Structure formats: C-alpha cells, structure tokens
C-alpha cells in the first residue's frame, strides 16, 4: 500500500454531512428507480385481484423511496434508520400472505437475519463514532485514523454487508426466500441484496488501506461464489436456482471488493441487478428455455476453446487498456473473461473446421469488446471516486483463484463424464451433502397442500 489514495476526490455535493451525491450513489439511485419502477408497473397487472393489492403497492413505493434515500445518505444515524426501515418493509412484502405459514416462516428467518445485520451495523457505527467521532461515511474516510477498535468496527461493517448480501454463512434466508411473490423476489435479488456491496463501497477508501480486512472479504466472497455456483447447477427448482445464482453472483461481487476492485463490484451489481430482475419477472417463460447440451470434450476442442477464450480476454483487456498478464488484481477480470469465452467456444465447437474457428474468433472479439465497454462505462462514471485500486496479487489470492479454477474443471468433468464420477460413493456422498445443504429451512417448505394459503 505504498501508493497514496487521493481521499479528497470523494467530496462531491455533500449536504450538511447528511446526503452525498457521488457517482456510486447516483448509480445506486439509477438501479433502484429503474428496477423499482419496472417491478411496480409489472405488478400493477400481475397482482391484479390480489386481496393485499393496495398494501403491496404502498409498501413497494415506500421501499423504492427508502432505497433512493439510502443510496445518497452519508450520515450514520439516518443511514441506520433507513436501513432498518428498508429491511422491515422487505420482510412484510416477502410474507405478503400472513395466513400462509411457510411464508411467515421465511419472513421470520429473513427478519432474524436482518436484525443481526442491524445489530452489526449499529455496533460498527457506534465504534466509528467513539473512535473517530465521525458522524458520516465521508468523515470516517477523511479522518485517516488507525486503531484496533476502528478495525473491529470495520469488521462489523463487513459482517453487516455479508448479512445483507447473503454471503456464506448468512445465506440461508435467501435460499428460503422463494415464498415471496415474484415481483418481490425480483426487487430483492436485483436491488435490496446489493446493499452489502454498496455499504462496503461507501467505506471503500478505508478498506483499501487495510489489506488484511480485504483478504477476509475476498475469502468469504469466494466461498459464497463457489458454493452458490455449484448449488445453482444442482437445483431443479427454478426460483431456488435463481436464489443460489444470486448467492454466487453476490459472492463474486464481494470477492471483487476484496481485491480492491470496488468499481468493478459496482459494475457487477448494477448489471447483475438488471439481469436478475429480468429473469425473475420472466420466470413464466423459463419453460421455453433450452436445456444446456453436454459439451463434447476432447483435446482439440479444449485447445481451440482456450485460444478462443484468450482472444476474447485479449480484446477485453486491450479495450480496457490493461495489460493482458497483469500482476495485480485486475487479472481476475481477465481470467473471468477468458473462461467466459472458452465456455462459449466449448459449446459451439463441432469437430475441426478453420471456417468455424474463424467465425468464432470474430464472435469472441465482439463479445470481449462489448463486455469491456459495459464495464468501462461504469468505471468511467465512478473513476473520479478513486474506487478501483489494483491490489498487487499475493499468494493468498493465487491459491484461492486456483481453487476457483479447480472447481471450474470439476464441474466441467461432472457435466462431461457424469457416468464416470457417479459410481464413486464419495461423489454420491458429496452430492447428497450439497443437496441437503442447499435446501431451504424445513419450516419454510409447504409440506402439505392444505398448509398453503393464497
């Protein structure tokens, strides 16, 4: 951490230390209002005839309003109040029908979780105030003080973010949240859950000064990312599949924070928000979705797809004006892009054909370019906030990334040679273990029809 970070940059329109209009809050407002209004319009007809129609829309409007204010709040006290209010409204929206026992139970589970988050947040803010007498995030950032108590406060802040973003081990509520009406799922998975990322970003400069804390964030982010991704592939239940996917995506976003890539994390939560909101609202169409075919793996296909993935990643990093083989944390994005490209190629490659390879190479360049542009848009917008700080890559990162790649290869193997692995009792045991872990809390399942209530 030799390079000095310019803290002055974070001062934008700071109104009496209560509201702040920096790029992150503006992006967050955009996300909240766009998704909020789309969900509200969607539910206007979707919820037609529901007996709680008016309560639902009233609460949904309150939720969006709260989200907007939360995005721009700088003051600790106001932030705390809005945070609690936001999650409380969410819980009521999630339950929706109080006669349905399973829905109430998943609401309770979420509420317990959010209460824990509120306690963590309260402790964090109190410690910040006691230690630095800061009233707001911007004051906290500018004080530049270091102490054990402050670090403990920062850990509490991390825990709050974990709770909100359903990071392992605080993920159960999210996996059990599908009793909520579809529009609520959409706004929860696309908006509210991003709260953790936004929270960490608000205090980003402080964390960038503390590599150990960043490593904690990275580790838990990566674990969630792995678990969520594997669970997602195992689910036969569409909404639970989406919930596990969100857990994985949030893990990835938090891991990005942990590598100092706060700006990339913001890009991720923004684009993922739109993606997930769309997927939830269009859940009725998921029947038409194609089944993913088994890739046919052989040396030629693997070699070709790695080259094609490389082309994709090269165009990506070149467009972002980053070195292809960087020694800092930006390499995680390049690797992701490489795997993305290779994954596409694996599924499209059939036999050996120069023409096909050529077409795919062009497609890869286009994909890499588009990918870079959408990331660049967000980074450009937030560049003045100095949120991206490329942490030099260390052994810890490397071993974690290795784990990540191993998981990727493992999944590729399971998918390509399912018959081979399934004969081992260790694999069977692993499957059952993971299946059981990815189930929602038992009390949130409607085990008998008569317990359902609309």
């Amino acid at each position, binding site marked *: 951490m030799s390079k000095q970070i310019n803290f002055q940059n974070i001062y934008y329109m700071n109104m009496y230390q209560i509201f702040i209009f920096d790029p992150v809050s503006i992006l967050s407002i955009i996300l909240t209002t*766009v998704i909020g209004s*789309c969900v509200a*319009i969607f539910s206007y*007809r*979707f919820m*037609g*005839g*529901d*007996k709680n129609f008016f309560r639902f829309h009233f609460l949904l409007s309150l939720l969006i309003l709260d989200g907007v204010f939360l995005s721009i709040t700088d003051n600790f006290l106001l932030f705390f109040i809005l945070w609690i209010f936001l999650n409380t409204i969410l819980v009521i929206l999630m339950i*929706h*029908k109080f006669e349905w026992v399973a829905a109430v139970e998943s609401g309770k589970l979420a509420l317990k979780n959010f209460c824990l988050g509120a306690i963590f947040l309260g402790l964090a803010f109190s410690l910040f105030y006691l230690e630095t007498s800061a009233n707001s995030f911007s004051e906290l950032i500018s004080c530049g003080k270091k102490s054990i108590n402050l670090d403990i406060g920062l850990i509490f802040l991390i825990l709050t973010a974990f709770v909100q973003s359903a990071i392992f081990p605080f993920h159960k509520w999210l996996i059990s949240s599908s009793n*909520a009406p*579809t529009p609520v799922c959409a706004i929860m998975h696309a908006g509210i859950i991003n709260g953790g990322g936004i929270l960490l970003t608000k205090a980003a400069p402080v964390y960038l000064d503390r590599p150990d804390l960043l490593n904690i964030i990275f580790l838990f982010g990566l674990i969630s990312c*792995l678990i969520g*991704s594997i669970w997602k*592939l*195992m689910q*036969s*239940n*569409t909404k639970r*599949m989406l919930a596990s996917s969100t857990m*994985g*995506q949030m893990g990835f976003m938090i891991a990005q924070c942990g590598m100092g890539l706060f700006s990339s994390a913001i890009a*991720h939560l923004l*684009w*993922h*928000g*739109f*993606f997930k*909101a769309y997927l939830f609202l*269009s859940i*009725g*169409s*998921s*029947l038409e979705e194609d089944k993913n075919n088994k890739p046919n793996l052989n040396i030629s296909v693997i070699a070709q797809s790695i080259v094609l993935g490389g082309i994709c990643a090269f165009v990506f990093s070149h467009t972002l004006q980053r070195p292809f083989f960087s020694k800092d944390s930006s390499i995680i994005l390049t690797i*992701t892009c490489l795997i993305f490209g290779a*994954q*596409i190629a694996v*599924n*499209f490659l059939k036999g050996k054909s120069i023409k096909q390879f050529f077409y795919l190479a062009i497609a890869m360049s286009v994909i890499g370019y588009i*990918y870079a542009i*959408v990331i660049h*848009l967000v980074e450009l917008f937030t560049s003045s906030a100095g949120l991206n700080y490329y942490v030099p890559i260390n052994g810890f990162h490397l071993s974690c990334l290795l784990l990540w790649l191993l998981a990727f290869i493992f999944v*590729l193997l*399971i998918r390509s040679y399912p018959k081979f692995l399934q004969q081992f009792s260790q*694999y*069977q045991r692993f499957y*059952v273990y993971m*299946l*059981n872990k990815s*189930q929602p809390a038992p009390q949130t*399942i*409607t*085990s*008998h029809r*008569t*317990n*359902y*209530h*609309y």
Partner: protein
Amino acid sequence: MEELVLKDFIRKSWNKIAPFWPIENLISVNPLQGFEENSFEDALIENERYFNRKDIPKDLLIINQITIKWLQVFFDEKQSVIGMPLKEQGFLKAILKLLVFDGTAHLNKDENRAFIRKLRPEPIEIISLCLREMSVELEQIEVFCTLLLTTLPGWASFISYKSFWEKSKSNHFILNEEYLAFRILLFYLISKSPASLISWHQKEIEFTKSKEQFEKIQNNETAYQKNLFNLLQNQTSSNQKKSKAQFIFCIDVRSEPMRKAIENLGDYETFGVAGFFSLPIEVHSKCTQNSFASCPVLLKPDFSINLKEKKKRKFIQLFRKFYSSTKYSIISPFALAESTGFFWGLFLVVKSFFPALSQYFSRKCMESTIEQRVDLESISTIPFDKRVDFAYNLLNGIGLVKDFAPIIVFCGHGGQTLNNPFRTALDCGACGGRPGGINAQTIASILNDQKIRQLLKIKGIKIPEETVFVGAFHNTTTDHIHLFDENCNQKSRLDLIKKDLAKAADINRSTRIKNLGYSKKEHPFFRAGDWSQPRPEWGLAKNGSLIVAPRALSRDVDLGGRSFLHSYDYTLDEDASVLSSILSAPGLVAFWINSQYLFSTLNNVIHGAGSKITKNIIGKFAIVQGNDSDIMNGLPLQSVYKTDVEPYHESMRLSIIIYAPLEHIQKALDGTLKIKSLCLKEWIHLFHWDPQTKLINKFTVC
C-alpha cells in the same frame, strides 16, 4: 403374505389417484377420478376426508419434505445441470444408494443405515418387509398404502401419469410400486407407527363443507339448466340457405360465440367437432428436434407430421445456445451477467414503459404458434387408405355429407400469451393441450387431394370439384382467425371471407370486452402480448354443457360461450355408433375439462395450482408453490377467480344434451360404459332433446 395379494392392494391404492400431465401439455382430468365409483355427493365427502385435512401429523410432513426433495431431482431432466447420480439405473436403485448418505432420512441412526444398506431394489420386497416390521394388519394395508399416496396427492398424480400414461415408457413401468416402496420405507425410518396414521384418517370429523359445496353446485346447475333449456326449446329453427362457406370449429366453448358472430354475418354455416379433426398425429420440429402428440391423450399418435420452419429461427437458436451454455456453468455466469446486463435492463425498460414497442419486436423475432406451418410433403407419410378413412369418419361424424360450400374452413385453435407456464391450458384440449393449427392444415390438405375425393365419392360423399378446403387458426385470446391459404386458387372468395372474419372477430371481441367490463387499456390484443398479465383470457371458464345436435337447432340462441357444441345428425347414424364414439371421446374430454374447472374453483388449494404470484417451477415440468411444496396439479387461481375471493367460473357438473330419439341414446350409452356409469353416479347430467316434441328432459340411465 402372498405377492399377488399385496400387488392387488397396491393397485387398489393407486386407483384412488388421478393422473396429472406435465405442464408442457396440460391435459384436464377429473382430480377425483379415483372416486368416480362413488356417487358425486359421496365423492365430495371422500375428497374432504382424503385431501382436505388440516391436522397433518408432524412425521408425515417430514416424510413429505424428503419425498419432495428426492422426486424433484429424480424427475428433473431439463433444469439442473448436475443431476442426481445413478438415476438412469431406475428410481429405487438410485435412491437406495443415495439414501444411505441422507441424514434427514435415516436420522443418523446406525440401525437405519444398516437397514437401508441391506435392502434390495425390489419394490414389493421392500413394501412387504416394511409392512411386516411395522406389523400392519392385513385389512389395513390398503388404506395405509392409499394414505401414503393421498397425503402427497400432486406427486402421486404425477407418478400415476409417469407409470400409466406416458407414451414413451422408458424405465418407469414399475414406478408406481417403486414410489410406494420409497414412501413406506421413509415412513418406517421416520415414523414407525402406521396405526396412528390410520386412526388419524378414520377419526370422525364433521364434513359440513362438502354439503355446502354440493348445495352450491346444485343451485348453480338448476339456474343454468333452466335458462338454457328455455332458450333451446323456445327457439324457432330457421331454414338454412345454401351457404357461401362452411366452417368447422373445435367443440371448445370459446368457438361458440365466434361461430355465432360468423353466422350472423351472412350465409355461413358452422360445424363443431373435436379440434384434432380425427387425426392421430404427432408434430415434429426439425429445428428443435422436439415432437409432441397433437391428438387426445386417449389416442396414440400413429403418424408424424413435420413443421415447415423459417430461417430466422436459427439466429435465435444461436443466441439461446450462447445464453444457456454460459448461464449453466461455473464462473461464466458472472461474465454473462456483466456483459449482457445492460441489454436486460433495456428490455426491462422497454417492456414496462413501451409495451407496444416490445410487442412489435417480439412479433418480428419470435415465431408464434399462429404461424406454424405444416410441411405438406410429410402428410404423404400417412398411408393413403388411412387418409381416406380419417376424412370419411370426420365428415360423416358431423353430418357434412352433402351441400358442400365452395369454401370449407377447418379452424384449429390456441391461445396467445406471454410468460405464462400455464399457456397450454389455453390451447386445444382435443390436441393434447397444444395449438390445433397443424391438424387443421393437415386435414384440409388431405381433403384437397383429388384422389382422396374420388374414393370418398365411392363411399358416398360427393365433394364438388370447385370446393376448396382451407386450414385456419383461431387465436382465442384475440379472436383473430388466420387462414393458411397460400396454395388456394379462390383468392377473390377468400378475400371476402377474410373481411367477414375480421368483422366477426371485432364483434366477438367487443362482446367479451363489454361482458367482462374491461377498460380500453385491457384490450385482448394488449393482454395477449403482456408479459405481466395473469389473465390473458378466461379459457374454458364458465363451461357448463355439451350439446350434441345439429347446429341449426342452437343457431339463434345466445349460449354465452358456455357450451361445447358437437354437430351430430342422428338420421345419418343408424346404429348409434357415431353417437357412442362422440360420448366416449369428446364427451369424456369435455367431462374432464368440466371437472378440472369445477374442482379448481371449488378448492383451489387442493385441486388447483394456487396463485400465480408465488408459483415456482420444478424441472420445467410442474408448478409448486413458494420454496417447495407438493406438485400443484390443476388450474391456477387466476384462471378461475376474478380476485382472491370472487370466482369467475361457476362450479357445476357437465350437462350433456343430446338431440336424438330415446332408444338411440340408450343404444349409444350401452356402447360407452364409462359415460353410462358417470351418468348413473351423477357426475354428468344427461338430457334428452326429443326430435318430435322438441322438449328437453332428464335422461334416466338404467
């Protein structure tokens, strides 16, 4: 205990369960099929006793959870990427190997683990072993087995479909026994006290609710029948002039108002017949390599018809492949979300704020079912004499054997809806829950074949040379009728007909809008393309009767879109065999549809799919509620209810009204014992419309 005795008990318990088709072709069934032996009134009581108990024992809830978990992953072939290991070895074999590792099932007890380990995957063996271990008495075996099925009715129904109805039975043929063995095994591991379950079931409770329900149904029926019979008896049938065109519609209740609108516009004649036009075919798409049966489930499709697909679909396939290959993987979904997030956001905004624009684009890009064309060459794969038979039976069955109009339109139908997993509930029930445009095009093409006409002539049906048959598709959501007239040489006549069809559609739409009190923004066109619309149309809601009679007799009556209309002329059917087959096929399907709507309305929690707002999809084949639940078999709340509390459908049993002499009906009934018994047990009301006196009276079955 003897194996045969046990097998008999198992068969009897499965008889209580009605099958349930996967959501991709939602076939209506009577959810109380297993109780059709009882009278309707008694079945309502049994319904309460078996399915509507609120005080479920706690052990059973745990057993249900485990069952749900394992069945989902076993039957899922389309959603999960990392599937259940060993499942190609069959259900029981796989589950026994995996259950050893499942702490929720063996409760981490060593003796339970050992018990599972030593079991052989023989269902009967496991069932009898567990029964012996729990010392279930002989006379209680049947009720015990039945209870294990009826306490998770949705899944039992699905298994019933898989083992008794699925066309391509791969390794599911003893699935019913395997499933029961699994349930009993779980019961043994977790509860171990069958006596308490049985005494819970036999506990005396008041069944006041079923009485209320029965009275309500009766009141609805009396009011409806009185009104209907008044209309039918008091009309004066007008003489039919020679018609410009004849339309053959499906018997579906939604065809009735459309037919009326067309008839009122001029010299048009319409007929009603089951919408698969007596073609037992299967439709195959070369592009997606999928095929589905396009005929009633009672028939087995014998012939395969190909679709003619357009080029532009290929591009969409490419994009879908890109999407699904990166979404269902590890790591690449993160890049997928980031790189395409912007576009999803754009779609979201356009769909929400500019719905008209989004509908325009989706029409441009997606091939809708309306445009599905038949590859005419594939029709010739049906043997020639079969084609002649199909054509002859169809025309004879509806009484269209003379006075052919120059243009005859076969009208298949289907609904148009977006983002709706229940979309097949809006399609043609006679086509196995699929849109019927393909069948219409096929039969039209068969009848346009001069060689076939020559043979029909020999059999006594003389079709004039100038007569042209045209296939068509009736979009029941928007009431638009599309003619497949590319190869037709009578352009000027067809243009006139098209104009009239547009007018008729307009009339029918306005009536619907007026009756339902829709505002301008809720126009059917908008509903059909709205991805957030839970009620694109009302489907077959409010259906109440099946009228088997010549159309001329009901032509001038406003039946309110509540009647299935089957054209039938008893004078052409001397031995009553046609009537018998009408009752046993379209009649039975109409009964199934009617009872599906009836029970989904009566109690949407136990026989319906619940609210669409909290629906969840498993394995892309069934609907559950929330995190997980039993398979919610039946129609969703929004298909039969206006609001959470106010039903739209009126629950009533089907009234079949037949225009034929008494002896004729009696003869036909003797040919269809199923319908006869349903009438006897009052599941169906049968009425006799006397050709002489023109009076409608209750037909007493004896």
